[in-house]
């Protein structure tokens, strides 16, 4: 399998990124904050308004290191990618399929089946591990509803209906998401999704995790030669990485949501790590964001057995493998797209 390399997260907004020889150099008011060999990098994520030198950008493009720009609150802004992976044939096939409702739905429904199934697994895990502390009856009911939704989704051939089923399943799942939070309950609760801006701590954490996952998934798709902007379930919208959002459907519960729950339940993050803005927006403080990135990067190193390949890989490679499997399906090596299904 491909080697998992490091991603550098630059969370301070007054840092300038430059190149010195074969090193990425972080500069603050002309002072060197740190130096990292380019060779070990897979990507650079920057938050805020700092700049990057043209020389660094050129090197990133050459070496296929993605340079991603987020707003300081963690919203994806854009990404710099090089000209490698000129796989025109694959992309043509992708566009063809994306214009065909039936073929698009055949892929999208596996992603949704994966998403619902993985959500079920999250709830089941909570029931299994904490039966005495949680409202098992409520959780079991939702698991049952998700199961029905998943079975229904499996036979759907219209994207519209599929979105409907997905929407219902998501609201059922999130109606009990709060049950999965077992520690620090007075500070961390989930009452509903708020995005722009996130209005509570859990939403702030979820938003950041989704942002990172989306950009890593987009980079993975481009890495195998797919166009991250042309999706099957998510239709085209300027500037939106629709295909990354598609693949993310099945990955959200197992990568982003599990990660956030772990942070809270293991008390790796605390109430005091957040600030509340005048408009009610809840943001992670700089230090806390740094530890968030560190833990995220660590989580990516952990091993998982890929359920379809039956091969041990690092968690961080899961988006890459799914992108690869999608490409292999589009090129005719597989009978369908195999979603990532967690045990």
């Amino acid at each position, binding site marked *: 399998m491909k080697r998992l390399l490091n991603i550098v997260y630059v969370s301070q907004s007054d840092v300038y990124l430059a190149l010195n020889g074969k090193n990425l150099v972080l500069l603050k008011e002309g002072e060197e904050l740190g130096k990292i060999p380019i060779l070990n990098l897979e990507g650079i994520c920057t938050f805020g308004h700092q700049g990057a030198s043209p020389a660094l950008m050129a090197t990133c493009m050459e070496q296929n290191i993605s340079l991603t720009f987020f707003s300081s609150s963690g919203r994806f802004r854009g990404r710099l990618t090089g000209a490698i992976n000129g796989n025109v044939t694959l992309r043509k096939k992708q566009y063809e399929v994306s214009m065909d409702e039936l073929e698009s739905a055949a892929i999208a429904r596996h992603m949704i089946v994966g998403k619902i199934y993985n959500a079920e697994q999250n709830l089941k895990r909570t029931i299994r591990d904490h039966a005495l502390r949680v409202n098992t009856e409520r959780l079991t009911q939702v698991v049952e509803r998700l199961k029905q939704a998943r079975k229904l989704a*499996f036979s759907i051939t219209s994207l519209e209906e599929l979105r409907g089923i997905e929407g219902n399943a998501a609201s059922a799942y999130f109606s009990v998401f709060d049950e999965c939070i077992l520690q620090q309950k007075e500070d961390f609760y989930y009452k509903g999704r708020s995005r722009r801006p996130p209005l509570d701590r859990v939403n702030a954490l979820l938003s950041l995790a989704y942002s990172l996952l989306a950009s890593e998934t987009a980079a993975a798709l481009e890495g195998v030669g797919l166009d991250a902007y042309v999706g099957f379930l998510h239709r085209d919208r300027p500037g939106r990485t629709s295909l990354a959002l598609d693949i993310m459907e099945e990955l959200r519960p197992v990568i982003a949501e599990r990660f956030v729950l772990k942070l809270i339940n293991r008390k790796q993050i605390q109430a005091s790590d957040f600030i509340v803005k005048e408009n009610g927006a809840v943001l992670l403080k700089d230090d806390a964001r740094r530890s968030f990135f560190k833990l995220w990067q660590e989580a990516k190193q952990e091993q998982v057995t890929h359920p379809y390949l039956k091969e041990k890989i690092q968690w961080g490679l899961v988006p890459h493998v799914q992108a690869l499997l999608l490409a292999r399906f589009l090129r005719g*090596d597989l009978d369908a797209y195999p979603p990532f*299904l967690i045990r």
Partner: protein
Amino acid sequence: MMAYNEEQFLMLSGLQHFVFCRRQWALIHIEQVWEDNVLTVEGNTLHEKADDPFVREKRGDTIYVRALPIHSYTLGINGICDMVEFTKTTKGITLANEDGQFAVKPIEYKRGAPKKHDADIAQLVAQVLCLEEMLQTTIDEAALYYHETRRREIVEITEEWRDKVTAMIKEMHQYYERKYTPRVKTGKHCKSCSLQHICLPELLNKESVLAYIDRMTRE
């Protein structure tokens, strides 16, 4: 015979991939996916050669030409010959600015050990076919030179090899036109294939995706 135009030319050096595994060739030349160690390395060596074009050296009766660009319109391929030897003989071809007649012999340099590999031979035969077409001559033998032992192995250009290589190149063009990446028998050679992480050979004999989803989600 049908002739290809330059737009349709395939890389002669791709033959070695094709002989190793048709799918590997298609992944590299049709899908244009590769891992660093395949094409970048190859690209680099090509670069070195390209920096040193048409070096002509004369020693006694022989003229040595290095890094000679070659092509064939009938086969629809092009590439570069490491070295071509033109040796004075009584019934050969004539060369511009040279007196007398010459026999032509391409020599391909190989890094590894002296083992006449099918891939090496195929590549050499393709070079011969290109040179024959370009120079309007016949070439009966060519050579592989192995760096490790500094030894030269003579390769006889048989009818059998000519047919085999011609057929292979035809097959390459067919895949290329259809943009088709063949599914192939996987095997031991996959272990030494630098593209195994992209090809995922195990996918070619994996359970169907529907069976997988069923297995995972059944209770």
